[in-house]
C-alpha cells in the first residue's frame, strides 16, 4: 500500500489530528533510549481498544509492520520501527480505569505513567511494586512489554509477578483477555508469556495489575567501602544470614564521583563502592535486623555505615542512585548501559572481568547495579561522535554479555533484547531453544507484522 493511501485509511479509523506523518514526527518516533534509529511510515495515537484493533487489522490485511510504543525509554531498541510501518503510540490511552482495593488490583490502559499509578495507589496505602529507574516517564505498557525490573526485585520480583491479566489485540485484530482479577485461571499462562515479549506477539490494550499493602516500616542504610570485593561479599553475606532486604544496590567510584558532582548525595570521593540496603515490612524485628546488617558490614570491612533517620534522609540516600544514569553524562556525552545478570555469588569475579575488558579496550566503565539480584549495569561512557570509540564500545558491550553468560548468567535482566542484543542471544540459547521461541511467534503472528525483527534472531 502506498504511504499516502495508508495515511488516508488510518485517518478513517482514528481522529485525523492523531495520525502523524510529518517529517519531524517520523523522526521523533524513530528512536528510543538505545543507540539505534529507524523511521516509521505513520504514527497513530489511538483512544480505544477498538481503534487499536482496527489499525492492526488493516496492517494485517496489507502486511504492514506495527510497533507499539509508550514513552520510548527502553534501552534495547525494542520500539524502533526498523522496518517502517505504523507506530502505535499509547499516550492517549493513559487512563487508570479502576482502583479495586477489595480485590487488590487496578485496571489501567498501557499509556499510564508508572509513577503516576504508584502515587495514586499509595494514597490509599497500597503499592504497585515494580519500580524501574525510569518510572517517572516510563509507561506501564512499556513495563509489561519489557518485563521491567527495578531496585526492589530482590524481594518483590519483576513485572511479571505483579500482572494478573491482560486485554490484547492479536495480529488479525481479534481482542482477547488473558488471566483476570480471578487468579490462577485454567489454561496456558498467556499473561506470563506475553509479558516481556516486547510487542512481538500482540498489542496489549489493558492491564490488571496486582496491588500490595504498603509496608508498615522501611529502613534505609548506606554503607561505604574501600574495595568493591568487600561490598559484593557483604551482599552475599546478608542473604546467607537469612535476611532478604527489599533492596541491595551498589555503585562504584566512577559513578559516585559523577553523582556527587550532580546531586551531592554526600558520598566520599575516594571510596571504592557504596551499598544502599533497604529493609521493609512489619516494624517488629526490624531493629534487630538492622543491627545484624551493621555487624555483617563491619565484618566485611565497611568504612562507614549510616542509617536514614527520616524520610528526608532516606530520599537523600536514594537521590544518588536514582540520579546515577543522568549524572554520568557529566563525564562523557553518551553512555551504553549493559544489563547482564549473574548468580549473585559470581558478582566479584564478573565485576573484575568487566573492568579488565574496559581497560583492555580503553573505554571508561562505571558500575551501578542491583547487587541483590545479580543484575549488573556497567555504564560504558563515550562520545558518540568518536567513531573509533563507538566501535570499541560495541565490542566491549558484547564481551561483557559473554562474561555474564559464561558465569551462568544471562544477557538481559530487565532491559530486553530488542535489536541491540539479537546477536548475543546465541550466548545463552541453542538453535533449538530459539526455534522453540519462533514457534511461539508463529502461533501468534504468522505473517510477522508485530514488531518484526525483534527479540529472536532470524534463522542462522
Amino acid at each position: 500500500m502506498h504511504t499516502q493511501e495508508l495515511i488516508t485509511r488510518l485517518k478513517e479509523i482514528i481522529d485525523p489530528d492523531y495520525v502523524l506523518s510529518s517529517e519531524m514526527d517520523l523522526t521523533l518516533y524513530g528512536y528510543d533510549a538505545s543507540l539505534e534509529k529507524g523511521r516509521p511510515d505513520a504514527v497513530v495515537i489511538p483512544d480505544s481498544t477498538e481503534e487499536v484493533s482496527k489499525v492492526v487489522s488493516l496492517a494485517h490485511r496489507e502486511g504492514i509492520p506495527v510497533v507499539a510504543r509508550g514513552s520510548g525509554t527502553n534501552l534495547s531498541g525494542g520500539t524502533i520501527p526498523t522496518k517502517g510501518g505504523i507506530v502505535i503510540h499509547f499516550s492517549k490511552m493513559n487512563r487508570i480505569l479502576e482502583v479495586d482495593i477489595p480485590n487488590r488490583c487496578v485496571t489501567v490502559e498501557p499509556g499510564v505513567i508508572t509513577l503516576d499509578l504508584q502515587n495514586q495507589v499509595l494514597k490509599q496505602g497500597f503499592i504497585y511494586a515494580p519500580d524501574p529507574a525510569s518510572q517517572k516517564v516510563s509507561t506501564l505498557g512499556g513495563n509489561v512489554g519489557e518485563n521491567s525490573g527495578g531496585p526492589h526485585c530482590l524481594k518483590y520480583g519483576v513485572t511479571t509477578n505483579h500482572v494478573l491479566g491482560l486485554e490484547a489485540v492479536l495480529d488479525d485484530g481479534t481482542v482477547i483477555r488473558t488471566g483476570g482479577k480471578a487468579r490462577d485461571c485454567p489454561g496456558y499462562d498467556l499473561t506470563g508469556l506475553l509479558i516481556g515479549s516486547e510487542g512481538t506477539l500482540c498489542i496489549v490494550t489493558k492491564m490488571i495489575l496486582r496491588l500490595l499493602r504498603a509496608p508498615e516500616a522501611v529502613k534505609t542504610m548506606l554503607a561505604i567501602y574501600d574495595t568493591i570485593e568487600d561490598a559484593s561479599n557483604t551482599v552475599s553475606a546478608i542473604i546467607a544470614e537469612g535476611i532478604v532486604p527489599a533492596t541491595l544496590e551498589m555503585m562504584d567510584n566512577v559513578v559516585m564521583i559523577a553523582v556527587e558532582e550532580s546531586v551531592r548525595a554526600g558520598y566520599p570521593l575516594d571510596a571504592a563502592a557504596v551499598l544502599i540496603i533497604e529493609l521493609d515490612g512489619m516494624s517488629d524485628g526490624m531493629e534487630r535486623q538492622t543491627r545484624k546488617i551493621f555487624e555483617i558490614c563491619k565484618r566485611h570491612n565497611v568504612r562507614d555505615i549510616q542509617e536514614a533517620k527520616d524520610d528526608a534522609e532516606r530520599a537523600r540516600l536514594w537521590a544518588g542512585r536514582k540520579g546515577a544514569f543522568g549524572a554520568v553524562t557529566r563525564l562523557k556525552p553518551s553512555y551504553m548501559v549493559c544489563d547482564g545478570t549473574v548468580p549473585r555469588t559470581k558478582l566479584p569475579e564478573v565485576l573484575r572481568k568487566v573492568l579488565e575488558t574496559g581497560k583492555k579496550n580503553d573505554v571508561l566503565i562505571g558500575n551501578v547495579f542491583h547487587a541483590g539480584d545479580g543484575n549488573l549495569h556497567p555504564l560504558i561512557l563515550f562520545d558518540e561522535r568518536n567513531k573509533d570509540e563507538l566501535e570499541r564500545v560495541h565490542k566491549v558491550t558484547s564481551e561483557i554479555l559473554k562474561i555474564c553468560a559464561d558465569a551462568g548468567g544471562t544477557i538481559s535482566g530487565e532491559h530486553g533484547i530488542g535489536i541491540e542484543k539479537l546477536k548475543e542471544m546465541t550466548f545463552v540459547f541453542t538453535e533449538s531453544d530459539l526455534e522453540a521461541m519462533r514457534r511461539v511467534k508463529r502461533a501468534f503472528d504468522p505473517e510477522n507484522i508485530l514488531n518484526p525483527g525483534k527479540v529472536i534472531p532470524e534463522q542462522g
Partner: protein
Amino acid sequence: MNTNRLKSLQVIVGNENVKNDSGTISAHAVDGVAPWAVVFPESVDQVSGIVRLAREEDLALVPHGSGSKMGKGNPPSRLDLVVSTTRLNRIVDMDTANLTATVQAGVKFKDIQAALAPLENRCYLPAGTRGTIIDQEVCSNRENTGCFIPMWPECSDSATIGGIIAANSSGPTQLIYGLPRDMVLGIRYVAPNGEIIGMGGKTVKNVSGYDICKLMIGSMGSLGMLCEMTLRLLPLPESLGTCIFTFPDLKTASDFVDRIFQTRLLPAAVELMNRRACEYLIPEQASAIENTEYAVAVALEGFEEAVNRMKSETREMALESSAEKDFYLGTDAHRRFWNTYSNLVPSLSDPYPDTVSFRLNYPISGYTKVVESAESVIKQTRLDYLLLVHAGSGITMIHFPVDPGDQGVFDGLTSINKKLLGTCENIGGNMVVERAGLSLKEKLKVWGLPRTDMVIMKRIKQQIDPSGLFCPGRFVGGI
C-alpha cells in the same frame, strides 16, 4: 508392531526400564485408558530419545510422576506410552548462597525440603516426613539457617516437583509466597519434536527472549515433558506458628477474615474452613469444635517479633468478631497441621477412593458469595463436603468424600458443578474439577468455561505439538 517399538524403547532406556506387564500398565492407566507400555527414563537424553521415537511412530504419551495430579483433566483421546519420572530423581544443584536449587522432575517435593534444611528441626516440613535419602552433592555454604521452596502444594507427601510445576499446584501459603509460576527461574524440557530445550536460568531477573517457562508451568504436560527445573528459594522463616479460631457462623468468620486484611499484618496464609474440614485437620479438638460452623487458621511465618505481634493482634480481632474457641499451634504443631492440610485428599481417599474435588477461582473479595452459594447449593443434595477457602487468594476447594461406586450422587454433583460454575463465572471466575471418577467426569465441565484466549491456546498447541502427541485431549478446550 508393538514388539518392534518395545525393542526400540529398550534400546533407549534399557530392558528393565520398559514395562508392559498388566500390573504396571493398569497402575499407570490414565482416566481408565491404559498405555501399552510404561517407560522409566533416567536422563533428559533418554526422554529425548523416547519422544523422537514417539514422533516417528506417532505414539501418544502422557508424563507421570507420583500420580497425585492424574485425576485432573479429560481422559486422553489416545494413549500409547506413559513416561514415568520416577528415575529422574536427582538434585542437580543446590546453591543456597544464591537461593536456587536445580532438580529433576521426579524428585519428591518433601525430599527437596529435607535436603535444604541443615538440621531436621530446621526443616520447613515436619520431622518424620523425610523421604528416601538421595545421592547428592550439596554445595551449601549456609551453616545456620537453611532455606526452603516457599510453597506448600497439595499432596506434599507424595507429589514430585515436576508434577507440581506442570500443574502449577499451589496451597494456602500462596498468599505470601506466590504461585509456582513465581518461583521457577529456569526449566529444561523435551519438546514434542524431541529437542531438548533450556529456558531461563539461575537468576531472578531474566528477560532474554520469550518467557517460555511461564508457558510450560501449568500446561499439564500438553506441550512437552518437563525434565529439570531451577527454583527460587527463601531463607527459612525464623519463627513458625498458627492461630486457629472457631466461629458460630460464616458471617462472624468472614468478618474476622476481612479485619485481618484491613491491617498491615503479613500472615502466610488465612484459611477459612467448614466444620467437616476441621474434623479432619484437628481431630484432637473434636469436642471443642462440635458446635462450630466455621474456623479460620492463620499461618504466621517470619521474624520472631513479627510472629508474636501477629499472634496477639489476630487473637484480639478474632475475639472482637465473636470467635468462640482459640488454639495456638507452635512450630512443630504448625508444621504438622499444614502437612495434614496438604495431604487431606490422599487421607480422604483411603476410606473414600472416589473423592471428588472442585477448585473454584474468583476475584478475592468474592469469597463470601462463593461460600454462601456453595452452602445453599450443596445443602439441597445432602452431600457430605469439606470446604476450604484460601482467603486473600481467591481460591476455594470443595472435597466430596463419596462412597465407592455410589452413582446415586452423580446427579447431585453434576448440579453442584453447574450451579457453582455459574456463580464463579458471574463474578469473573472459573471452576476446575481436580479429581472425579471417569463416569462422573463425563457429565462435568472438567476445565470450567472456555474464554476468549482459547483461540490462541489452540494455535500454540498446534504450532508446538502439531501431531498431538502430548496428553492429547486432556487439557483445556480438548487441547
